[in-house]
């Protein structure tokens, strides 16, 4: 049944091209919702074996070369399909104001979503790579046509990085195909690849996928791309596309080349920790709100990579949970920054926003951003906490030192998040020249509940901001609910993720 997520989404994309423009956003919304509903129904359906990568569709495709149209499902894919659905619905809701070339916009958007569903459900390597590459070009057009700041540069950079990763993956897949003699992921997972092959094919394959997951030092496409993208584009990038890389690294590179993984996993952990700390430190110095969030994405994805590198059940399950969590939180942060703030104020400069007294003008936006920031910082009760603590427990067993450094990194995360929060919503004119280093951010924390007398000092400036619309509230509500629900009851997802992780070969 869950295979219908793919078909519905692509069918919706084609319908969009045919029907007139007035229906565009409704078609997109219906399509995204239908996809999500299907995945949710599967989630609550009890008779699905989520502990193994269970085949749900298998049709010979190119029999001469051993390619099958083969889809399968386990707890890991289901989690990611869910977050794809959530991100897709909210991305459509936050694009409710796209009028110009709306058909085209939602067409590209649905292609990204449909391709992502395809990647998460593919059990054939060729099929997986096909969907994986299918996502890249729509992303380019989504950003280059509909984006904002420096859009053509950002789009091209993102696309070339993706293709660079794609070329590495291509080489890795050919190596797998030729040596393993099959493209079926389940068959290949039983195959014993020569250690010599694993030693070079694993890093090629892993790095190729990890480019899309924003691994340091190949992460620079992410902030630029996020900033250039339209709101829905950044939401999809943060919410789904970065997960494609992490998911495929886990499903393909790690699962097929366990020995290669053992050889290289320390290096992955090193890169991941550098990514976490470095991106957080850079985020602290950014002046553009979207750049702050863009770097925070890189930092959060560093946790995913760290979790994968631990090679134990806790770490890897935490990584999958973090993929879900960051998908939701990242989308929420970009929604606030891109749609709620930038579309109304036409600036994302923290200094300019500081004088606008936004918490009063846009109280709902402020509320949403506070929730998103709290989740992003890893406050207990939100999904970010549940995921990161699981990863750190896993990491403690493998790399205790990494946990110490990451702990320091989490302080930086809190610092830049609070700084962005304060400068955007709770700052008043007089303080707009606030310093921007870590110690200043700490003092900012204390000042966060700004005295109401100061806020009322410039009420006239907030008048002409259009109020938050219903679609925005719905989208934000959906994302906030998701992060809160998983944060309060992570077992809900973990119970489905853990058995699937335990079935993976590199743990044995």
């Amino acid at each position, binding site marked *: 049944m869950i295979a219908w997520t793919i078909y519905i989404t692509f069918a919706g994309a084609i319908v969009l091209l045919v029907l007139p423009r007035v229906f565009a956003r409704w078609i997109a919304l219906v399509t995204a919702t239908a996809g999500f509903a299907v995945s949710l129904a599967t989630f609550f359906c009890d008779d699905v074996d989520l502990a193994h990568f269970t085949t749900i569709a298998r049709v010979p*495709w*190119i*029999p*001469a*070369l051993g390619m099958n149209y083969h889809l399968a499902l386990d707890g890991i894919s289901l989690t990611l399909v869910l977050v794809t659905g959530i991100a897709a619905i909210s991305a459509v809701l936050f694009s409710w104001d796209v009028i110009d070339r709306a058909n085209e916009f939602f067409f590209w958007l649905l292609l990204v979503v449909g391709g992502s569903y395809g990647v998460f459900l593919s059990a054939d390597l*060729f099929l997986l*790579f*096909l*969907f994986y*590459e*299918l996502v*890249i*070009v729509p992303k*380019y*057009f989504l950003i*280059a*046509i509909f984006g904002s700041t420096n859009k*053509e540069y950002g789009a*091209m950079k993102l*696309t*070339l990085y993706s*293709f*660079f990763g*794609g*070329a590495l993956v*291509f*080489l890795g897949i*050919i*190596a797998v*195909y*030729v040596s393993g003699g099959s493209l079926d992921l389940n068959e290949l997972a039983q195959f014993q690849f020569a250690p010599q092959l694993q030693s070079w094919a694993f890093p090629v394959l892993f790095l190729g996928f990890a480019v899309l997951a924003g691994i340091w030092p190949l992460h620079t496409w992410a902030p630029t791309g996020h900033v250039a993208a339209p709101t829905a584009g950044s939401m999809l990038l943060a919410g789904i596309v970065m997960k494609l890389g992490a998911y495929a690294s886990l499903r393909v590179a790690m699962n097929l080349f366990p020995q290669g993984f053992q050889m290289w996993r320390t290096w992955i952990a090193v890169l991941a920790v550098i990514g976490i700390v470095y991106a957080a430190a850079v985020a602290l110095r950014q002046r553009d709100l979207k750049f702050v969030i863009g770097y925070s994405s890189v930092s959060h994805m560093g946790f995913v990579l760290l979790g994968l590198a631990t090679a134990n059940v806790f770490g890897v399950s935490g990584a999958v949970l973090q993929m879900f969590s960051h998908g939701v939180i990242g989308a929420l942060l970009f929604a606030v920054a891109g749609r709620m703030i930038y579309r109304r104020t036409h600036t994302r400069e923290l200094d300019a926003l500081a004088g606008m007294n936004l918490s009063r003008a846009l109280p709902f936006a402020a509320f949403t951003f506070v929730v998103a920031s709290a989740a992003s910082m890893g406050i207990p009760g939100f999904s970010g906490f549940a995921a990161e603590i699981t990863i750190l427990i896993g990491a403690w067993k493998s790399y205790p030192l990494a946990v110490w450094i990451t702990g320091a990194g989490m302080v930086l995360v809190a610092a830049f998040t609070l700084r962005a929060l304060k400068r955007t919503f709770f700052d008043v004119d007089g303080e707009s020249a606030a310093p921007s280093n870590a110690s200043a951010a700490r003092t900012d924390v204390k000042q966060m509940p700004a005295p109401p007398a100061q806020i009322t000092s410039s009420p006239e400036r907030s008048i002409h901001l259009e109020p938050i619309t219903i679609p925005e509230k719905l989208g934000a509500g959906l994302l906030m609910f998701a992060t809160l629900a998983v944060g309060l009851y992570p077992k809900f997802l973990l119970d489905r993720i853990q058995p699937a992780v335990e079935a993976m070969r590199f743990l044995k």
Partner: protein
Amino acid sequence: MSYLELLKLAAPEAIVVVAALAVLTIGLTTARALVLGPIVAVLGVALAIGAVVMLPSHANLFGGMLVISPLNSLFKIICLALAIATVPLVSSEKALRNPGEYIAVLLLGSVGLMLLVGSEELLMIFIGLELLGLSLYVLAAFDKADVHSAEAGLKYFLFGSTASAFTLFGISLIYGMSGTTALAAIGQKLAGAPVQPLLAVGIVMTLIGFAFKIAAAPFHLWAPDAYQGAPIPSAAFIASGSKVASFVVLGKIVLVGFGPVHGSADWHAMIAGWSPVLAALAAFSILLGNFVALAQTNVRRLLAYSAVAHGGYTLLGVVAGGREGFSATLFYTSTYAVTLVGAFAVVGSVRRETGGDDLQNFSGLAARSPFLAACMAIFFLSLAGLPPLAGFFGKFYLFSAAFRAGANHGLLWLVAVALFGSFVSLYYYLIVLKVIFVDKKPESATAGNGPDFFSRITVTLLAAVVLVLGIMPQTLAAKIIASLP
């Protein structure tokens, strides 16, 4: 062997020649040759395809001069289909003054293609090459009013005739060494013999002629001018039919004729033979074509340099050798040819509406003509090797064949070069698509009446073929594999 039987077996060629003469007559007698000519030509070629289908599955005349085998018949059909796809482009080329003659020469070129594909004997192959070459020289220089067309024709002719001389000399050396011109017999004679200097010279010289035809660097110098200056249908035909036939014959010559002196292009163990030569040509073409294409601002010139690179990729399959490698090469070159005819058809429409084929002539094409823009996107993304289009599967097939060949993945270096090249190529394909989809259309641009009916149908069909071969590649791949002995 009676003449009647010969005529039966050579019926497809004969039909195309008759069609060419008919079109020539139409061109001389009526003023409406621009309409009637293409129709008669398409009907004639379609009839020829029917005749190819009716041929017996195996026949061998005059020691390999005319060979009928599933492989040859399949590629005769593909070449003829490419000719059919090229003919409608003529009707949108208003500047041509003698469309009857033009189409007749195009059809004679197609006969050259069929002879080339249908022969397994060096002399006959050379005659086919010359018949094809002479037709193509004329086609390239056909637009007498345009100095670029004359330049294209002259360059193509000078390079081409020099390359032919090399090939003829090479063939004569091979003949001297083996005492025969039939490929299968050459293969037997060369078996077990060491690679003597004379044989090496003969092989290299023979290969030069084909490297010229497929525009492999460093024998590509004619390509940019020919692609840019020649009339659009000529350029499309040079880039498609001629290339497909050349690859078929090249594959047959090296794999059947020179099979025993294969050599090895493995990184760690290079052995003298033809495969290191072709591997070097492939690597050089891929790098040079892709990097030079980055700097182009004219779409046709860009396609020319990308053709050099694609020639390089396609050679990978020949270097890999064997049934799998050769079938990958054949699949890739066929889909590439279809894609390129489509791309040239779109360029032709744009050129007619905006008067040029530079990058800026394409700006805002998506707003002006969403149909052409969408088709161009399909063609270019297929060239870039993106799913779910034919180019993606083609590359996968080709690269996995090359990776598999050789002991201990010895061709990994070549695959890595090819992957790197195709990564570089994405940039310039995307730039063209960016201009089409993202850039605003210039103020001066007027909404033309779009492509005419025939070109529209052709472009749609070609785009559909590219898409279908991407989603269901086994429709063609299985046929190719089955046709290989």
